[in-house]
């Protein structure tokens, strides 16, 4: 049995009473405030500020209660495909929140920041080595920003050569950020299809490339979890056409320690440290999306880069071809600390074990689930890597129970749902990724749960559609939230 905690918790604005405070600012030895009260002219003074008035007790309770109404890897499986929800080691949290991390200021001298620089340098070297790239920037805030960075580099690379190529080729199985990033970097997106066996349609690709092709973005393993075994051939096609190869590292988990994008013909790659390298997702961020490039592209990386000279570390700002900055300062430093600690904790053997077990978990699950009525594993029998996409199209057709319904029914068993309706090329997609951190026991629970849901779908579909019941709220009206007439995007919109 499972039951999520339930507190009918009002909004923070609905708590509190006039006169309550959460913090006192009293201190010894203060500058007298009164003396400066008149400094701000009336025209610039704000009159009312509608913030809550709550005591510290209320604030602590409020958010503690909210947290209990939230799922996390710390509570159980979180098999969101393409999200690589691993265990987040607490050691890494402790290291990332040390004073020598949190209390550092980017405008301190480099002499007084040698620890930070050394750590960034070492991480940069390790990432280069793991991916087979030559140099990495640690600056991008997330994978998508890494993609944009990469696309800007592609853009600048061609511009510098006087070559105004404006197309980026992207497979139809790609994550939405790939086309969105390409577009933000000013490119037109050319889509290539996935063939029936789950690989990029090489023939179509060959037709798609041209002298307008600036590059190709892909993830490998692709979002079906299948390793594009013709990676090198694809690279050759693109390179021959004058384009660059961009590796979306969101799926690095599938091959980490066993193959390197750099060896597979990619010129640029980002890594989501918050996926393969175990930094926490924190409900959606912060993460980090370092971008690595092959030697010829190094000059385009954002400034500054950390370099080592005679045992000292320094920032090099003097890179004339650089695209400049993609973000203020040097990157999500606390996330970098976590990733570095993770790499030490794994070693090369650990990374290899990690991809090995992640892939084992997927295929074990795929094997078990493929026997369940109404579920199928589309796109052929290739061994999956870190994730597998299941289709519930049969169940949907035969019973009306959708992937959405199935996801809600899973929640009721204390099992978080997989990613659904992605990739777009699979109907009623359920995209499972158990990562190396999941237990066989729990994977078995998913298999049992899907068996049970399938059976109930065929006997009592409306029962399934009425789920979940054990979560802190029942099914929510998602349409209402986005409909212009009922949309409430803030307390202010709600209370007006």
């Amino acid at each position: 049995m499972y039951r999520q905690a339930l507190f009918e918790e009002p909004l923070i604005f609905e708590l509190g009473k006039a006169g309550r405070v959460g913090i006192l600012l009293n201190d010894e030895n203060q500058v007298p405030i009164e003396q400066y009260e008149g400094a701000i002219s009336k025209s610039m003074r704000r009159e009312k500020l509608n913030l809550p008035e709550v005591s510290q007790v209320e604030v602590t309770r409020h958010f503690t209660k909210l947290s209990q109404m939230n799922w996390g890897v710390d509570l159980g499986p979180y098999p969101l495909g393409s999200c690589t929800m691993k265990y987040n080691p607490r050691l890494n949290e402790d290291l990332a929140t040390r004073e020598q991390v949190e209390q550092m200021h980017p405008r301190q001298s480099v002499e007084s920041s040698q620890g930070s620089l050394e750590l960034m340098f070492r991480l940069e070297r390790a990432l280069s080595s793991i991916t087979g790239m030559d140099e990495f920037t640690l600056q991008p805030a997330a994978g998508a920003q890494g993609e944009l960075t990469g696309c800007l580099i592609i853009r600048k690379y061609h511009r510098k050569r006087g070559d105004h190529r404006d197309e980026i080729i992207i497979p139809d199985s790609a994550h939405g950020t790939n086309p969105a990033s390409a577009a933000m970097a000013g490119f037109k997106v050319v889509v290539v299809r996935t063939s029936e066996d789950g690989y990029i349609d090489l023939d179509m690709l060959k037709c798609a490339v041209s002298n307008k092709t600036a590059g190709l973005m892909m993830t490998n393993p692709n979002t079906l979890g299948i390793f594009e075994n013709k990676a090198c051939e694809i690279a050759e096609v693109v390179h021959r056409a004058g384009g660059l190869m961009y590796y979306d590292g969101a799926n690095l988990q599938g091959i980490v320690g066993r193959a390197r994008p750099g060896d597979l013909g990619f010129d640029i790659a980002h890594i989501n440290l918050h996926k393969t390298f175990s930094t926490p997702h924190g409900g959606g961020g912060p993460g980090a999306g370092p971008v690595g490039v092959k030697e010829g592209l190094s000059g385009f990386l954002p400034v500054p880069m950390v370099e080592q000279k005679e045992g000292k570390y320094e920032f090099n700002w003097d890179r004339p071809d650089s695209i400049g900055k993609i973000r203020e300062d040097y990157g999500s430093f606390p996330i970098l600390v976590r990733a570095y600690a993770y790499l030490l904790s794994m070693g090369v053997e650990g990374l290899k074990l990690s991809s090995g077990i992640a892939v084992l978990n997927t295929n074990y699950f795929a094997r078990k689930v493929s026997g369940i009525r109404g579920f199928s594993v589309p796109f052929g029998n290739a061994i999956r890597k870190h994730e597998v996409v299941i289709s519930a199209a049969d169940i949907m057709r035969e019973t009306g129970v959708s992937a959405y319904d199935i996801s809600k029914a899973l929640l009721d068993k204390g099992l978080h749902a997989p990613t659904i309706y992605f990739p777009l090329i699979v109907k009623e997609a359920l995209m499972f990724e158990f990562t190396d951190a999941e237990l066989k026991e729990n994977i078995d629970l998913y298999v049992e749960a899907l068996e049970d849901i399938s059976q109930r779908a065929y006997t009592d579909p409306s029962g399934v559609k009425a789920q979940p019941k054990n979560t802190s709220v029942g099914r929510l009206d998602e349409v209402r939230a986005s409909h212009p007439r009922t949309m409430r995007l803030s307390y202010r919109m709600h209370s007006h």
Partner: protein
Amino acid sequence: MINTHPYIPNASSVTKEMLRVVGVRGLDDLFVDIPSFPFEIDELLPEPIGESGVKRIVEETLSKNKVYGTKCFAGGGPWFHFIPSAVRHIISRGEFLTSYTPYQAEVSQGILQAFFEFQSLICELYDMEVANASMYDLSTAVAESALLCARVTGRKKIIIPACLPWERKSVIANYTEPQGVLIEEAPYSKENGGVDLERLKEVIDDDVAGVYVENPSFLGMIDNGVKGIVEISHDSGALAVVGCDPLSLGVLKPPGELGADVAVGNGQPLGIAPAMGGNTLGIMACREDPGIVRQMPGRIVGMTKTADGRRRGYVLALSTREQHIRREKATSNICTNQALLAVAATIYLSMMGRTGLASISRKIIANTEYAKDRMRMDELIEPIFQGINFRDFAMTIKGADDVDGKIREKGMVGGRNLSEDFPEMKDGRLFAVTEVHTKKEIDELTSSIHEALGGA
């Protein structure tokens, strides 16, 4: 070859059984479809290091950092503001820390409500109706606002203050240039550092999609002209984007009241540690104008009801703007954002509350004005601009480079060197003091600068 690891539970006695089900002999058999390029990873040890060893190694590396903390007075951000202890404790809770973007709303009400509260608090603070649940940082928030203005107006020019740091300008350009959106700079008044209204009028034309202004400015000046700038923008059919420090809004008029269409901010002061500049939080909000709202980037949480209409609940809203649905036509590519730091800001703002935030604003202004006054030294140290400052203040210090070194010897970090961004501000330094500084600490800073210049 290792066969067990604390983070990899199935690397244990169950491996064999699972391999059998899959029908392969060993893990390596699962990778036969990968072309083999032998490689070595020299930067890592082959074997894992245990927790105790990793801790020692990382701590040894970090110990090469010198922690100045609040003895660092560099302006321009990030800043050392006070962080209530409860913030860290709450955001460290596994249910928040280890959760993903709340795709499954029914088991994610906790963080969804927290995001909704974040949006709501930001709306109150900035006097707006809609806010998203975070951008990467202020620069990208400004950049995305510029793109938004271009999309909403169909125009192709953005005016920004000349008085922004190079990094911010560079980020903006990286986002706008590929879209063919041009950036023009509005010159600043040499007297008070604000955007020069007359010259703005000269620059602005029918092609301008948006005007961006900051208050307080990058150099900490409280700008009485913002309302005028907004009006000039609107008059020429452009949108007005106003950037404000959230902590200044305990006292200063909010963007909404000044007529802004879009408001942005740097959320780091809201309970988030500087961390080498690595803990950023971009704030972005707008008026309840459907045309603008539809163009907002990023995640937005909406309040709704359960299907049976009985209870309140929260879900991700308006996702048809976003990349996972709209792909290359999305309003932005942002996916992973700064969510947990937005939760930190939510806790911070809740705890500060109405009176706390106002007190903090006042305290910062008092400390800043006091520091500025104390620092002055006839002919040697002068404020670059006339006016009232919030936290950051720019001073010309004779022989500033030498002074920097002398302050450092006293265990402090002085002002940010402005001459790099603004060559006209030779010997310019941007300092910052916040509410955490006692009078004594400010006095220590100023007297060590005076000492360095041979004064009392």
